[in-house]
């Protein structure tokens, strides 16, 4: 049962929502980190020092990823995603805590060709062709797949003879993708992989990623496209302000966020009557139309009817991962005093 409306959570980007209620608490699922985890973070922290004072980019992050999983890594801008990925890949060192790849250091794993990565900030060479660029990457990995195969999978076979620096952003993104898979590495890390790709290439990209996952590879990707996380990830990790906020399947995260929207028309209803309903996460009113976000739409609806109210035009819709993501990060920010320094809810568009 929901108690008094303790905290106000605004779920809409412009902050013009009606009265809101804080719903059920959701705790990050603590995953045990057994032997043989591909990625392990143990109480990892990283602080940057800016003129305005210290920024705790990653703050006691603990998580682990098992072989063969496809994992989406989500968080608002400034949540610490890129910092975490950089530490994961050994590009920067944590101030405290432990990061392990395949039970050892990132440098060792990379040296043995166990990691294929596609960085958001990853540059390409100038004055070389696509073929030469990818060929180089094949030579820099111990067990590469044929270059022609990588070009085909990345849908750039027709660009092989073009100069890399003359390509469009989306085309360069696909070159990066070919480089990430050429090493046939058991772990593939992708930071915003489909940014700049058109719909067709995005679909081709995910089809290829799905094949890699079926081969038993671990695929970890950060993205702003929450539909992609919803569709392709079997596990979703959400971080906020450098901490683990939620960890589970997409369905679990939607459920924990209050994953149904119950809307109806009910002229003249008192706000207080609405607030008494169980399992509420968020309440929105526009004149006679009431929209509730609820973690248990059945219970909420029954309670509404039991209270003697007779709403019309009743609709129950599942919420997408995007709304769930917004709900849990907004709630978390509200809980602990606003977003981290510089953080914005980019997904709230």
């Amino acid at each position: 049962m929901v108690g008094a409306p303790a905290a106000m959570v605004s779920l809409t980007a412009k902050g013009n929502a009606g009265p809101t209620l804080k719903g059920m608490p959701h705790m990050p699922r603590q995953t045990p980190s057994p032997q043989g985890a591909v990625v392990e973070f143990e109480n990892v922290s990283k602080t940057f020092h800016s003129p305005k004072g210290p920024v705790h980019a990653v703050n006691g992050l603990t998580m682990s990823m098992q072989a063969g999983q496809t994992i989406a890594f989500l968080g608002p801008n400034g949540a610490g995603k890129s910092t975490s990925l950089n530490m994961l890949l050994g590009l920067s060192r944590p101030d405290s805590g432990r990061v392990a790849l395949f039970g050892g250091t990132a440098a060792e794993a990379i040296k043995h060709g166990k990691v294929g990565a596609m960085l958001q900030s990853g540059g390409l060479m100038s004055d070389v062709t696509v073929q030469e660029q990818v060929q180089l990457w094949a030579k820099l990995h111990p067990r590469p797949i044929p270059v022609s195969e990588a070009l085909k999978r990345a849908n750039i076979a027709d660009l092989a003879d073009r100069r890399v620096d003359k390509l469009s952003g989306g085309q360069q993104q696909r070159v990066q993708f070919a480089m990430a898979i050429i090493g046939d590495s058991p772990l593939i890390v992708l930071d915003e992989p489909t940014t700049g790709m058109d719909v067709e290439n995005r679909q081709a990209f995910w089809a290829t990623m799905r094949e890699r996952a079926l081969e038993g590879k671990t695929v970890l990707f950060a993205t702003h496209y929450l539909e992609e996380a919803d569709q392709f990830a079997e596990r979703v990790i959400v971080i906020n302000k450098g901490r683990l906020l939620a960890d589970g399947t997409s369905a679990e995260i939607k459920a924990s966020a209050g994953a149904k929207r119950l809307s109806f028309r009910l002229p003249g209803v008192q706000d207080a009557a609405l607030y008494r309903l169980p399992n509420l996460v968020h309440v929105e009113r526009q004149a006679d139309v009431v929209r509730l976000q609820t973690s248990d739409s059945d219970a909420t609806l029954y309670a509404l009817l039991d209270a003697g109210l007779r709403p019309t035009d009743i609709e129950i819709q599942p919420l997408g991962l995007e709304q769930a993501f917004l709900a849990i990060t907004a709630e978390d920010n509200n809980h602990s005093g606003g977003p981290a320094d510089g953080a914005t809810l980019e997904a709230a568009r």
Partner: protein
Amino acid sequence: MNSTITLTKLDVLRVLRNTRYLIFAIAMPSVLYIAIGNSTKQTNGVEFKAYYMLAMATYGAFAGALMNNSIRIATERKTGWTRQLRLTSLPGGGYVFSKVVTSLVTTIPSVLVVFALGGTVFGVHMDAWKWVANAVVLWLASMVFVSLAVAIGYRFDPETAQPAVMLVFFPMAILGGLWFPLEGTLDKIGKWFPTYQAHKLGTDIITDGKISMESVGIIGGWAVLFAALAVVSYRAAQDQ
């Protein structure tokens, strides 16, 4: 080591394809030489056409060594290319190694093209061993600027690396007496520059077949200074 060699080969190839390199290190010294160098009057004890051939060969080699790597390293750090390389089996120093070797290789054509022009078009004559000695000496002396390029590349952004390079390039070219022979005060200042001394090593070889220890000492001093700068900026960049 294999991966480093692969990277180096591609790095050499792309410099040879690069327009900036072709203009500054090959075309400009050749054109200047053809335009200005055709004179038999004596300058510093040698015919001007030999004097200016050495000047332009030094100029091409030093410009190539200085310009390519400084801008490239700065740019490739900025675009994240150096980060990308850290996600491969390439050893830690492989990138810098590749850049240095690329400079060693891509300064050779600058010397050879100008020497070929001198030997054929202008009919510069000297003993065969002097041609070889001159080519090797000028090439080695221009290597001083390979480490300076590394220092600039790791210290500056792509935007600021360009002016930093120019700030070094013009005094080194002009006070080194590479564009026109120096006299009086300019000559007294110029002799402390490595470009001046590299060129002088060349004319010394032609006139009396000897290598002056004073020239070697001055060039060596700059080499040590630039190498130290390179190490300092490289280390500072790694810590970021």
